[in-house]
């Protein structure tokens, strides 16, 4: 699953950090998988579901990666 998230169109790290700064949620589909991401002040969580299998991650602080190759949060971000 990780490889799917890390392939394709990717925004620059700085651009992505700017987008996901603050708090909010986004969901997207990518490479046959569905991704749901949430960022709050204290941490973030992500669920990636492919072929009936879901894997979850959570971390402290600001998320530092890219989601769905950069299409999310652009496509569906709801900033609270």
């Amino acid at each position, binding site marked *: *699953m*990780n490889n799917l*998230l*890390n392939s394709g169109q990717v925004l620059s790290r700085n651009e992505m950090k700017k987008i996901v700064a603050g*708090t*909010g*949620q986004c*969901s997207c*589909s990518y490479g046959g998988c*569905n*991704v*749901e*991401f*949430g*960022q*709050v*002040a*204290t*941490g*973030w*969580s*992500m*669920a*990636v*579901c492919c*072929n*009936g*299998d*879901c*894997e*979850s*991650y*959570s*971390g*402290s*602080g*600001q*998320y*530092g*990666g*890219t989601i769905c190759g950069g299409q999310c949060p652009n496509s569906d971000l*709801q900033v*609270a």
Partner: protein
Amino acid sequence: MNDKSLGWKVLAVCSLPLLITYCSSEDTAIPQTENQTFNTLLQEAPATIIDLDEVPVDTVLVTPDNMLGTKRSSRLSEPVFLSPMGTRFLKIGDSLYVANRQKIYVLDEKGVWQRSVGRQGRGPGEFAASIRISHNSEYIAALDYWNGRIQVFDHNLNLLFTETKNLHDSHLSNNLALTDDFLYMGIPPHGSEDLISVYKMDDFKNRFDSFWPKIIPDGLQPGPYNTIIIDSNESNQLAVTNLGLPYLFILNQEKRINHLLYFDSTYYRELENPAAKPVRIEGKDEHSLPGVRSFIQQMQLNDDGTIYFTVGYNLYEVIPVATNKYQLNRAWHFMIEESPSSSENLKSMHITDMIVESDSLYFVTMSEGYLFKTGL
């Protein structure tokens, strides 16, 4: 987890003649985890081991005839397409109430979308993002997480009140369950070591209680084990499971564990999830932190104590056969044609929310964008 020793125990039990149905074994020592906090919970009640591999799985072919919501009332100006993740629904009478993005839709008994309430925003009756909903005999509660509040409606979707809460947890699977007396929310109270917040329905402003310990302390990994799936029934029983762990707890209305179920299965062993022992791992994204793969994904506790849950593509039914005695009863796997013209090309359906009522299953899936109804 000591799966090997469990495997031998189950093998020994299953090889006996006149076996209890599907190899359920009561009061058997169940495997411990690497997490001392969680292991303490395992000591609190008798347990039943259930072997999910021993039940035959019925394959159900779902067709377009099983789709609900292919038509809409003229009152709805736009077609409804359900998002692949985050759609939640409930059933009151013959109607389904479907929370999808920033709206709650009503689907009538004929499967026609009738109306909706809500839109994106911060005002009364508006929602920031995807909503979690639950209901009791009087209310529908919508967890408007990203606005930091709960909005309570009557069954006609008239907004009754909005209550702001101090929500700060980052877990996406935070869900809620309502009884006539209490609201249970899978979001830790601020500053608490518990995972589930409790509010009394007649005193919604003040948190009444909290319970269910965080098994991974803040800042440590694997954090997703703190994600809770919870459901309640009219008898004020609660069913609780932690994401990625093959245990399901049945609690009474005093929130004491009455019984716990351990599910042995090939599926779980193949998940190869990380140990539940808290460790410090630094990382900023999913590539540098341990992931936890889901075991139970959806779970429903019915009023008669029957438990339905999904594992992978399968739906399982566990029934109470006596006080604190449970048995695996049935299992299903749902498939749909990928396109109407290719009947040989079937694909499995990944259930993302469900209701089982009167031997009918209502469900939404990861990729189809519709609600379905099928008999069980």
